[in-house]
């Protein structure tokens, strides 16, 4: 049995391209319900307008990544960008995947074809990440239109958000593979919402007492914001950004490996 496990999971078939067939399938499905995708884009835009622009008018400036003062809106916008990548990826890799896994038997049908559990993991994570990318790209355009991009480094913000989305999709799908029922998705909300509110999205790390700072620094979204904020503001660009990027590479790899293993265990009984 262990031999089977090894031979079925090890060749991560990105190169084989079969995983893209899942992306094709999802594109076909969403072509009819594109409105559902569009709605997900508005959420961070509304936050940007209300908190960034609205409250920003009261707050004025805050300390940016390099300590110099920047406009509050320019401070919040990149954080919302990272959060939109997270949300887009998590939407698809949790609820939608769970439905296909437990109820629609979508993956059982796929496994009667040359597709294996690893293809399914890669395919769904790619798709969730693409959805996250779509949100990030449009949000970046909104930022540009509102004059919230202050640096050419911002060009790297898109690949950065793609990486963030990939990691969140992989971890989201891995977590979903452990879910027993719909009520378990409360835990996803329990993780996402505080992360969204407190990972230096709306105020800098310095407002927290030291012990809480350490907790915040452990959250993935914190690393996402630390990665993206210097890129769009052009302040605090340094080698440290690579560290945050590597953090997400590692997270994505772990999430993908766990997902493939779990799918194999759940589907190939």
């Amino acid at each position: 049995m262990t031999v089977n496990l090894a031979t079925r999971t090890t060749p991560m078939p990105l190169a084989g391209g079969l995983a893209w067939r899942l992306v094709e399938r999802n594109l076909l499905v969403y072509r009819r319900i594109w409105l559902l995708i569009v709605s997900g884009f508005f959420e961070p835009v509304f936050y940007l307008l209300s908190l960034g622009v609205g409250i920003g008018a009261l707050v004025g400036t805050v300390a940016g990544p390099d300590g110099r003062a920047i406009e509050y809106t320019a401070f919040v916008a990149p954080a919302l960008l990272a959060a939109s990548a997270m949300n887009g990826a998590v939407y698809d890799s949790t609820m939608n995947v769970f439905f296909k896994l437990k109820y629609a038997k979508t993956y059982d049908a796929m496994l009667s074809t040359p597709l294996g559990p690893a293809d399914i993991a890669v395919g769904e994570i790619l798709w969730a990440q693409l959805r996250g990318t779509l949100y990030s790209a449009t949000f970046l355009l909104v930022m540009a239109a509102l004059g919230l991009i202050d640096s050419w480094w911002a060009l790297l913000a898109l690949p950065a958000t793609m990486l963030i989305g990939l990691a969140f999709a992989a971890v989201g799908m891995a977590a979903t593979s452990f879910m027993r029922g719909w009520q378990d998705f409360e835990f996803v909300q329990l993780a996402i919402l505080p992360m969204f509110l407190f990972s230096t999205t709306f105020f800098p790390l310095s407002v927290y007492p030291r012990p809480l700072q350490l907790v915040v620094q452990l959250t993935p979204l914190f690393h996402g914001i630390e990665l993206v904020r210097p890129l769009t503001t052009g302040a605090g660009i340094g080698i440290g950004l690579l560290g945050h990027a590597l953090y997400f590479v590692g997270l994505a790899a772990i999430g993908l490996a766990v997902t493939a293993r779990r799918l194999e265990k759940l589907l190939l009984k």
Partner: protein
Amino acid sequence: MTEPDPAEQLVHARGLTKRFGDFTAVDGIDVDVRRGEAFGFLGPNGAGKSSTMRMIACVSPVTDGTLRVLGRDPATDGAWIRGRLGVVPQEDSLDLELTVRENLLVYGRYFGLPKPLIRERAEELLDFVQLTDKRDAKVDALSGGMKRRLTIARSLINEPEVLLLDEPTTGLDPQARHVLWDRLFRLKQQGVTLILTTHYMDEAEQLCDRLVVMDKAHIVAEGSPAELIGQWSAREVVEVRFAPGDHEAMAGKVEDLGSRVEVLPDRLLLYTEDGDAAAAAVHERGLHPVGLLVRRSTLEDVFLRLTGRTLVD
């Protein structure tokens, strides 16, 4: 047992075993399926049919024993084998988020087939399963029989060498079953090897050239429907009804008229080579049955003899 040509032997199992923890679902069975035949696994619920099918379909690792499908080992060549199989699962697993035609198109893509080829095959298959006028309908809107037919069409998109059908007509009305049987019969004529599980004896008699009867994880009988009837039942069965409660007593008075007599709560079953002669003898002995019926022996008789009349859940 002489080993047939491996190229003609599409499934080859020796001592095939599947265990789930302490529970043994399949216990060391030997099976050979030859190219072009329709092969059936018969058995009550929980006999191990579906577990065997899942192992052949390369979606369930073999616990013990040898299994070769199309000459290869599912443990190492699973994807290669699955690319050449068609699978009709027990539970419909159609993609509810897609239309009838899209189900075929997308499924074909999972096999890595080029789009123009899939489009062409999809039209042919929709015609074959009589769903052309439903091509743009949502799967949800289809009847049970239509869903089954679509599942069969989907399983044929890669032009499989072997079609695996797990209880293909369970839950269908008689009309839908006959349409399905007709399609399966045509496939068989086209040379597709069929492997199916069923607990419907008429289905097995209609479709299978050869079958095995499974009970409690073992194979208990093997052969063509006619061979099995010859071996485990008699040619004809006389069903004799007496007044309620008399059957046990009457069994002794007729048991010499056939090879075997079985007592049921409401009737006696007399297994015999010549039903009319036995029926006449019952009357000659002045036993005055309330009712009497001579019928041909069926696989159902074999099945009940081999697997018992006790309810299996």
